[in-house]
């Protein structure tokens, strides 16, 4: 165990420091704190998995038992089938993929114009974007919702996708990045009589993979957990995302016979399982791309 410490040559504390007992104690404290952190991260989900196999009456029965009387895996299959949960997953993936595409293309394109193309009058619009920098769109929920109704976009994914195309924060991230790209690149593209639109796809996009990764990951996380607008817009059960469906089940639980807290917890478990599979398959990409989010000095 200690060998590893001895070979640590980078970072704040190195092998040189670990020669002292004091720092070795500090190291094990660090190790301990991280272990607690991981435990805190994992146990609630573990608790959920275990508890979702309980009966409704076992769930809050006293005295408290951590484990159910029996692990009835039929319950998992039964609840899954009953609800056809795949549908809601598919819907969520459709929403997330659309949102990521919109977010990258529209924010990227506008940032490209603001940072590189700079047509006359762009400053007015840039100023407007900056002014609404930190104001979330949902603050004006009534007019926004009314607009969505008037455009006939209720019960469609269109507003959910395109809302991510108007995000000042992502836009500014793109803009800062584009401004840091070498100017010569765009001049060359211009020389090639490459149209501006073409230049965006041929020059800017390939050069911007790190920042696209960051915005994509941020958008993905945000869209995956987006709630208010999907809840208002997606009225039809067959259109609902996982978030909306779970909320729906939770809030109408009081009136649906036979659907108690135990089944709700099983639904939560079910909603997590595919995510774990996706995570296991793509963990490098997922954890790797959020690493790109670090802003370089």
């Amino acid at each position, binding site marked *: 165990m200690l060998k590893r410490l001895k070979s640590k040559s980078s970072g704040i504390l190195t092998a040189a420091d670990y020669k002292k007992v004091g720092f070795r104690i500090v190291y094990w404290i660090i190790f301990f704190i991280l272990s607690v952190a991981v435990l805190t991260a994992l146990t609630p989900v573990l608790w959920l998995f275990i508890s979702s196999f309980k009966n409704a009456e076992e769930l809050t029965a006293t005295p408290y038992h951590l484990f159910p009387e029996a692990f009835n895996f039929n319950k998992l299959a039964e609840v899954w089938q009953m609800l056809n949960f795949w549908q809601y997953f598919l819907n969520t993936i459709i929403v997330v993929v659309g949102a990521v595409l919109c977010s990258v293309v529209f924010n990227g394109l506008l940032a490209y114009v603001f940072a590189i193309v700079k047509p006359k009058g762009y400053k007015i619009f840039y100023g407007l974007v900056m002014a609404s920098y*930190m104001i979330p769109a949902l603050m004006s929920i009534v007019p*926004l919702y009314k607009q969505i109704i008037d455009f006939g976009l209720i019960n469609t994914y269109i507003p959910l996708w395109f809302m991510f195309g108007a995000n000042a924060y992502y836009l500014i991230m793109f803009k800062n990045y584009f401004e840091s790209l070498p100017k010569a690149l765009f001049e060359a593209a211009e020389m090639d009589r490459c149209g501006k639109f073409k230049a965006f796809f041929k020059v800017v996009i390939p050069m911007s993979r790190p920042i696209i990764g960051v915005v994509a990951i941020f958008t993905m996380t945000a869209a995956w957990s987006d709630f208010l607008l999907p809840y208002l817009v997606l009225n039809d059960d067959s259109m609902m995302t996982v978030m909306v469906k*779970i909320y729906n089940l939770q809030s109408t639980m009081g009136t649906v016979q036979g659907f108690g807290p135990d089944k709700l917890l099983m639904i939560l478990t079910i909603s997590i399982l595919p995510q774990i599979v996706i995570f296991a398959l793509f963990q490098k990409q997922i954890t790797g791309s959020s690493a790109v989010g670090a802003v370089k000095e």
Partner: protein
Amino acid sequence: MKKEKLYDRSSVSYKAKRLFKRNWSGWLLMLPGLLLFLFFVWAPLAQNVILSFNETKGFESVGFNNFDNYIRVFNDPMFTKALANTFKYILWSIIIGFLVPIFLGLLLSEVVHFKPFFRLGIYFPSIVSGIAVVIMWSYLFDPNPGAVLNQLLTALGIPVSQFLSNPSLTIPLIVVTMTWRGAGGTVLVYLSALQNIDNSQYEAARMDGAGALSRVLHVTLPHIMPTIRMLFILQIISVFQVFYEPLVMTSGGPDGASISLLLLSYRYAFESFDAGASAATGVILAVIIIILTVIYLRISMPKKDKVSNKWRRYAEKVKK
């Protein structure tokens, strides 16, 4: 080029044509993005301001009513609570949601044993969808002394808690829930920022006799400062979007102890059918955000970090 000479360069139509010729492609490229901003941000914002000065029936305005909506909102005890809660949410999310990931990121960058395991473990909660997280935690926070967390507290010799039903714990616990889910992603961002630090600067600092704490303060923190700033803004933005967490966990209670302005605005519109009050709340929220943004920009005016430059110079010396 030759053709242009045929025109009078000073004529308005020539200028307009030139302006158009030079810029049309840029304008065209701007159009889709701007339309989206118009649809999702500016138009609703403008309509919201107008609506906030109007009497409403359903979602339609039926006439100007001056500051009536604002007066009604300010007289609502629930609004006062939501306003105060906003600052409580900010405070707690700075203490918990903002600082904890920095701390964990630092520790994670230093650990050498089981590092991949720690990294994955800490990130894991981020893959659970938000609503599942809040429902799960609201079951964990069951105030029955016989329920799971209270049993744990009892085992540890800590008195049992009412958790979310205790008004002074509600907001911190909601922030804990949000952090539990959100911290993992943030930690990874910090981790990669930390790994980007050039080791020679630590070496230089060490040569100069800087202790461990001074290395953190003078080398590590200045280097991850841009990341810290970015994530700070994201953190604050997320506070203003707090909505479904109190909705699911406490329905804004007990007695408004956890209601957020966004949730209140939603309630006015969709439960009390008072679009005017909802709009007024939205406008007030926007004003708060603008004030905070201005303050933030004032404070964080880019100042070159002198201290970190000092170490950089040392680093250069050492290399030589």
